[in-house]
């Protein structure tokens, strides 16, 4: 097999496995995996910016929340049906990421991290400020009757799993295609050596902006899908914690690998799940894993696999 074939076999094999698992898994893990696939989509969006372009954002929760509220508020206050509401959620993420990117990309490094953090914090506070519509920290439930997409009831576990799988598959396939496309190759070049990429004649700013928008839009799609599939939107999804989590998922799974976001999300989800059975301080796990990864395994799971087993892993 060529490297391309191996890579396609691996990633489509994963999708096939995830599809098949729904028939085997007990209800609890079935529900978890639906959630993991939506969150892994968020991580895929984050990884495009962090793993492939080399830009570390500490504010992606604002894009996730833009999708969530863009979608949720349309249903709640304007009586939209899910399809157009989803579209508006995604568009909200697109517009927000374009605006934030255009400003934040004037900075680099630590300043970029803090600017994104500050914008996200402002976003969170704005959700609280308009509590009359958003119901602030408490959030709001999207009723079962409002969650029917093209006649399919998305509160039904089977439909929900399938929808999550579709979203995850689409975004994984998109990123698989993207990193083979010249645009994606250029993002990697910018990550590796920005001034060299510029002196080859690439417009670095526009490529980075494209990456922020793509990343923000995928994150918004995940946020919108999360609210629709699980019937709830709340300001907690806009907090710093939800900006840190995708960073953790991607670091754990392996930044700059396609399979990393899924692996990282899966492991973190179950780590937190297990830890919360023992203590309310389950976020301790997040802290320990972050420190341990930074100290001992900078490449994450996917990076270690690439370094030790499969050097073709994209």
């Amino acid at each position, binding site marked *: 097999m060529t490297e391309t074939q191996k890579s396609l076999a691996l990633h489509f094999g994963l999708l096939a496995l995830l599809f098949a698992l729904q028939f085997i898994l007990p209800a609890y893990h079935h529900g978890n995996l639906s959630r993991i696939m939506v969150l892994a989509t968020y991580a895929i969006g984050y990884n495009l910016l962090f793993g492939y372009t080399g830009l*570390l954002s*500490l504010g992606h929760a604002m894009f996730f929340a833009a999708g969530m509220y863009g979608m949720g508020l349309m249903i709640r206050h304007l009586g939209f049906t899910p399809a157009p509401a989803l579209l508006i959620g995604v568009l909200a993420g697109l517009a927000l990421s374009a605006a934030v990117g255009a*400003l*934040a990309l*004037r*900075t680099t*490094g*630590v*300043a970029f*991290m*803090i*600017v994104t*953090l*500050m*914008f996200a*914090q*402002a976003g969170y*506070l*704005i959700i*609280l*400020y308009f509590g009359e519509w958003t119901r602030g920290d408490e959030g709001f439930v999207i009723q079962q009757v409002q969650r029917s997409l093209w006649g399919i009831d998305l509160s039904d576990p089977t439909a929900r799993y399938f929808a999550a799988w579709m979203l995850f598959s689409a975004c994984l396939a998109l990123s698989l295609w993207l990193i083979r496309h010249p645009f994606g190759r250029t993002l990697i070049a910018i990550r590796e050596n920005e001034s060299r990429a510029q002196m080859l004649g690439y417009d670095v700013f526009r490529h980075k902006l494209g990456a922020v928008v793509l990343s923000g839009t995928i994150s918004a799609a995940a946020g919108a899908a999360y609210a629709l599939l699980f019937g709830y939107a709340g300001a907690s999804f806009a907090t710093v914690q939800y900006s*840190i989590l995708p*960073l953790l998922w991607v*670091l754990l799974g392996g930044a700059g690998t396609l399979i990393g976001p899924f692996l990282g999300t899966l492991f973190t989800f179950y780590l937190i799940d297990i830890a919360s059975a023992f*203590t*309310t*301080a*389950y*976020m*301790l796990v*997040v*802290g*320990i*894993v*972050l*420190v341990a990864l*930074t*100290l001992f395994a*900078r490449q994450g799971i996917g990076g270690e696999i690439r370094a030790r087993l499969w050097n073709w892993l994209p």
Partner: protein
Amino acid sequence: MEFGPYLMLASLEGAVTAAVLALTAVGLSLVFGVMRVVNVAHGEFFMLGAVLAWWIATTMGGHPAAGFAAALIVAPILVGVIAAAADMTILKRVDYDPERTIVVTIGLLYIIQQLTLMTYGPEARPVEPPFNTRLALPWIEWGENGLGLYWPWGLSTTTYKLAVIGAAAVVLIGVWLLMTRTRIGLVMRATQLDREMAQAFGIPVERIYALVFGLGAALAALGAVLIVPIQQAHYLMGGDPLLLSFIVVIIGGLGSLPGTVVAAILIGMSDGIISVFFTPTLAKILATLLVALVLVFRPQGLFGARPA
């Protein structure tokens, strides 16, 4: 209350906020200035100071002043030692790489916060102030007999609040003297200017870094000990000071101590005064957006000089 007295009250409350904020932010600024790293766990060192203050005061028992005095000395030292240990075991090993340091201090943030939750618990607990006499304040007004003083109801402060402002001022002057007038301050500034050069001249850079990181955390802890008789100690109390310190340090010009103090006074005072006009949430929204835009358009800070 009328507007004038109300504004005066807000300014006094703002001055207390500003005093504590200045201590906390100068700690963050010191670490950024000398070590060129952003410590995201800074707010947790603040929280740790407050929680330890409660623990020390409760363990001591006896007169509140004795417990508080012990906390005022012991809590910052303990927090400083913990921070220095974190520097030597963790930050040193990521080689103070700016981005990896941020990630690793985020990890530290959760570890400290969640360990506090596991041991101290989710309750908010007060510490009794060592002294707390209410001082009614006068207001000037045109009355029937011309200009006269009167005491509006509710316009008051406490001796303790005034003491907080005084204590913060003394400590800040102390830090300034330490940095400008002592040998250790000179060594710190040399390290800040050029780490390699400092190392070449035999300055033990690693020990200086541990010292600075400990000192930065101790200043945050000190701020927390001072505020804990007014607020309460809670395991999630580190978030706001972290955010506000970020705002202050960035607006004051990264790594500039005088700029940081000026910005702390500005932000702390306006936090009190703005909330007269806006809701606190709106004030925070405006402040965070201001910080983001300052970093984008004026990265040297509002008070910093544009580099040549």
